[in-house]
């Protein structure tokens, strides 16, 4: 397995990177444009989302097309961006705020947790919060500190929030539409290392009209028989690569793209794992109290008797996301995932 140490996303045999379709940032851009077009109460706001088109160009051209009233550059203050979105929702608007990077959700945490997530509850439904908070997330681009973090467990722990994370351009397009149409606040975690991936975007696919409860929430990204990799966001592609490598050794891995991190499709997950009876959860966030613990517990509760092996977790470590080249040591790589697969298969 020595050659696996050099694995790079998109550089593996068996899964050449797509050269057709839209990039993920183009797919999200298209979804935003269509959302702004179809609902005049929809607004985009955030730091540098207007004239610049966002630091990842996700909102490129939207201000030119929809004007400064619908696509707003805000001052640099994350708490006020989220707080203002709460007020806009109270006034009957549907804001889609952007926090420029994951780590800068922390300055806004009071407005996210104490305000956005609770206003509906506090007002007994009088003040619903149809707000979709876009957060470019996860590592993989060797960015500076606070620019490569994985906060899904933080968000998923908060009553009143929903959390979704796409893995492909087509998924990003569709899931963003579902999120914005959801009447509840949704944190939309975009895997920034996948922004430049290309893939087909089916505009006709639309989105679930009534939110994530009405559609299959997880996606079998690759069917397999011997063990199930459960993952989301940027790690979906890595797990698909791992599955290709394992296939060369005769191991048939299933890859589950969870998509909705809250609500987790617990029934769908249990059904998938019951088929292989072995599961490995893969995520970038630190292990302790990470979402992998929740997944593992759900599997214990729902299919303990079917499991042939304890659920394993391959995760980041309990350290701040490290700088530069150390990030490769931190993020789950193919070898670590394969080792965990080997472990669950040996039981």
């Amino acid at each position: 397995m020595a050659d696996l140490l050099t694995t790079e996303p998109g550089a593996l045999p068996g899964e050449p990177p797509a050269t057709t379709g839209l990039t993920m940032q183009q797919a999200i851009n298209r979804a935003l444009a269509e959302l702004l077009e179809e609902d005049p109460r929809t607004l985009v706001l955030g730091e540098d989302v207007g004239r610049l088109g966002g630091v990842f160009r996700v909102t490129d051209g939207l201000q030119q097309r929809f004007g400064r009233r619908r696509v707003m550059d805000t001052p640099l203050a994350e708490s006020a961006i989220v707080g203002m979105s709460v007020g806009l929702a109270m006034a009957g608007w549907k804001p889609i705020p952007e926090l420029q990077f994951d780590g800068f959700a922390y300055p806004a945490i009071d407005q996210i947790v104490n305000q956005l997530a609770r206003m509906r509850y506090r007002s007994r439904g009088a003040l619903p919060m149809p707000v979709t908070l876009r957060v470019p997330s996860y590592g993989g681009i060797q960015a500076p500190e606070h620019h490569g973090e994985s906060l899904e467990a933080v968000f998923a722990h908060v009553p009143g929030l929903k959390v979704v994370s796409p893995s492909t351009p087509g998924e990003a397009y569709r899931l963003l539409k579902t999120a914005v149409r959801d009447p509840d606040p949704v944190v939309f975690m975009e895997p920034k290392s996948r922004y430049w991936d290309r893939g087909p975007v089916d505009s006709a696919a639309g989105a679930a009209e009534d939110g994530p409860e009405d559609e299959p929430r997880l996606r079998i990204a690759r069917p397999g028989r011997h063990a199930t990799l459960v993952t989301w966001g940027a790690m979906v592609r890595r797990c698909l690569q791992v599955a290709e490598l394992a296939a060369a050794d005769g191991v048939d891995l299933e890859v589950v793209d969870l998509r909705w991190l809250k609500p987790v499709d617990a029934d769908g997950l249990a059904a998938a794992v019951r088929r292989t009876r072995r599961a490995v959860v893969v995520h970038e966030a630190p292990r302790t109290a990470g979402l992998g613990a929740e997944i593992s517990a759900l599997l214990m509760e729902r299919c303990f008797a079917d499991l042939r092996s304890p659920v394993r977790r391959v995760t980041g470590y309990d350290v701040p996301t490290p700088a530069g080249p150390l990030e490769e040591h931190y993020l789950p790589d193919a070898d670590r995932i394969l080792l965990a697969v080997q472990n669950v298969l040996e039981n």
Partner: protein
Amino acid sequence: MDTNSASPGRGTPPGPPDPGLLRRLYRDLALTRAIDRESLALQRQGVFPAYVQVLGQEAAQVGSAAALERGRDFAFPTYRELGAAVALDADLTGYLASHRALWHGGLWNPRECGLAPLNAVVGGPVPHAVGWAMGAQLDGTGGCALAYFGDGASSQGDIHEAMNFAGVFRLPVVFFCQNNRWALSVPLREQVAGGSVAARAAGYGMPGVQVDGNDVLAVHTAVAEAVRRGREGGGPTVVEALTYRRAPHSTSDDPTRYRGTPEEAAEEAEWAGRDPLELARRLLLAEGAADPEWLDRTDRAAALRARRHADEVAALPEPSGEEMFTQVLEHPTAALREQQEEWREWHGYRADWEVAENG
């Protein structure tokens, strides 16, 4: 401290005050005072687990909220804005329900009266006022937002972010600071660098005025002017009402631990001598807007109505436990529905068990 800070442009009405307005303000002041008194009694009787008195701040709250137009404007309170609820004609029994701890945000409908739910994070609702004002501006309603906060909350980052946003976008927001000189136990001099919240407005490119917060007409005039400026596209304003919290921070607080020096006692006595209702009575009499008999009758009517709200809130049923689950999300998650079912089963089991135990 100079409590006679009302000067031209600082809450002085341009002409003789409208007698109808004066009577309306007094009615609201009297009702606020009466409900405040009943609420304290309800806390002493054990109906309210705790209460936050408004005593001394009635004029600041009534004068500011009365400058709003119901249905067009929106006020964003903290947890001590009974006077605003009165002036906005909120469902006051529903308002008091939050002090009975029946529901965190209260049981009134914020959309009906333009008063947001109670908020215990001081400073937290102030950015909401800015966002709401942005929405009103986009809709072209001419609506204006009024954000309540205190001298303590003025230290919060959210206040500064909100003021800056409102200044940049020139939004119709009145940042209304009730400077009651005490942030729980910490006095103004240890809380607000420079001593003035209004002075900060200049840095955010908006006017800032200080008014005598115990003079209901001065407050009303200053806020009405700020609201008018907002409606006309003139952007936000900071109004700092100088007042005094005469009661403890809450019924759980013991101010003898921090308000002890002779200077502090003198200050307290000075403010007690400038009671907002007493000042308003004098004003109405001096302006010929009312006679003593009208004032007494108004006080009696307020006492009766306060009593009615007190009786009503004490008699309100406790909310159903189901609502813990149903109010969180418009589309509850499967996990939440499962937990609701789990609670329901346990609740039913416990009820059966209690019947079996107690007959």
